[in-house]
Structure formats: structure tokens, C-alpha cells
């Protein structure tokens, strides 16, 4: 999977490394900005109140 991506990136090793880094940053951004905030309330780690529900 990662090997396949690596081979399909354009340019020499340096360029590939740079593009890979950009891709990783983009993925982490999407995770932190959208995926984790969505997932967190669904997981039972952060309920602090007492209630009837």
C-alpha cells in the first residue's frame, strides 16, 4: 500500500519524500480537525456529569 503510493509519486527520492510529508500532514490535519472531534463524543471517556440518562 505505502510502497505503491511511493512508487506512484512523481520526481526523485527527495521530491517524493517532500510530497509524502505533505500528505502525512494533510492526513493528520483532517484527523484532528474533523475525524477526532466527531468520534470523541461517541466514545465513553469524557462524560463528567451525573444525570438520569
Amino acid at each position, binding site marked *: *500500500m*505505502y*510502497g*505503491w503510493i511511493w*512508487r506512484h509519486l512523481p520526481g526523485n527520492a527527495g521530491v517524493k519524500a517532500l510530497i509524502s510529508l505533505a500528505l502525512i500532514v494533510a492526513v*493528520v490535519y483532517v*484527523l*484532528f480537525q474533523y475525524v*477526532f472531534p466527531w*468520534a*470523541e*463524543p461517541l466514545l*465513553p*471517556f*469524557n*462524560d*463528567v*456529569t*451525573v*444525570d*438520569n440518562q
Partner: protein
Amino acid sequence: MNVAATTDGTAEQTDTASPGRPAPRRRGGRIALAVSVFGELLITGGLVLGLFVVYSLWWTNVLADRKADQQGDKVRDTWAQEQDKGPGALDTGDGIGFLHVPAMKNGEVLVEKGTTSKILNDGVAGYYTDPVKATLPTSGKNGNFSLAAHRDGHGAKFHNIDKLKKGDAIVFETKDKWYVYKVYAALPETSKYNVKTLAAVPKESGKKKAGKYITLTTCTPVYTSRYRYVVWGELVRVDPVDSRRTPPKELD
């Protein structure tokens, strides 16, 4: 898919990704590929979970502290402006005051109305409106000033709630009063359905008569929300705020 070309490159990774399987050599390219993709997916899943831990325990704190500072500044600004104009309306913004708990070593915690996660995620403590409505100390009535805040992540304002001992001070600061409470009881573990802890007279704390109480709730054990941790305090003194906002001696 370019199977023939990938076999050599990925077969080596297979060894480290799934040591339990016999490493296929050269031939059997399809199986090698499938195993290597599976292994990479597992590694990716592990990394994502690790990132989620970083997110919950660090990044949400960064965001929440930033937000809480902004809102806290806004409240202090509003107070300062009202001071200039002379006696005026009560608190108009979202924040009604600040909680100071020296034993928790977490500075001041802004207090806002409500305990939904949207409010608490901003790194503040919220007073209950549901299922039992909190009695604000500013009302001057007997009752229970019940609050909730996060134990971990989102500012983790009540992280050190277990450090609170009998006799420790909990000070609530409003525009013109310091409400000094003393901790008198704690419940290190209770069910999340135990709404009696928020009652005007919290019987589980040993009190029978009406009085001015404060209740802090958060989740326990740390990093989970299986149970709730509850700390009770009772009002011992109300000090007026002077022009320099000198804190009461409990906060020195």
C-alpha cells in the same frame, strides 16, 4: 494493480509486519501482497489510535485553554467596564465568575451556565441546570452550587480533584464577592446516575440541614468515565471584593 512489480518490494516488509505467518518468498505474490497490505493497515490503525490519544490528552487542552482564556478575559473586561460605570446590571456574559481551588493547582477556572459537552469543552466548569438546578451563591439562598468540569482533555480543569482534602478551600470569585467554601466530604466513586449528590441538601455528604453547599463533579478513574467523583464543600465566609481585587487569605 501491478502485482508482479510490487512483489519484491513488499515481500520484505511482510516479515516485520506479521511475524506469525510464514514469509512467502518471491512466488505466491498475491498472498504476499495481501498480507503486506493487511499489515500496513494494522500499523496505520495503531498510528491513528496513538494520534487519537495525543488529540484527547494534549490537543483538546490546547484548544480549551485558549478558549477559556479568551472568555475569562472577556468576563474580566466586562467587570472592569461595569466598575467604571458604577453599580449596574449583574453578569451579562456567559461566564458568571471564577473558581479558585488552590489544592488542585490549576489556577482559576471560569464558571459558565450549563454542563453540556459543548460548554465544558471550552475548558470551563459548568453549573448544573439539569437534572437538578444549581443554586447560585449570588442568589443568597440556601442550596447547592453544583458544578462539573473535565477530568482529562478539554482543559482538564478538575484533573486533580482527588487532591482535595477535608478543610481545603474552594473560592468562587464574582464581580464583587469572594465566596469561600471549605471541603467537608468527598465521594471518590459513585454511579453516574447518582443525581442525589446534587440535591439542595446532599444527604450522602452527611448533611441534614439546609445550608449553602458547593458540589464538584467529574469523572473517575482518570482517562475514563466509568464512575463519578464528587466533592462537597460548605460556605464559610463571604468577603467583599476591594478595589484591587485582593484575594482572600485562602488563596495566598
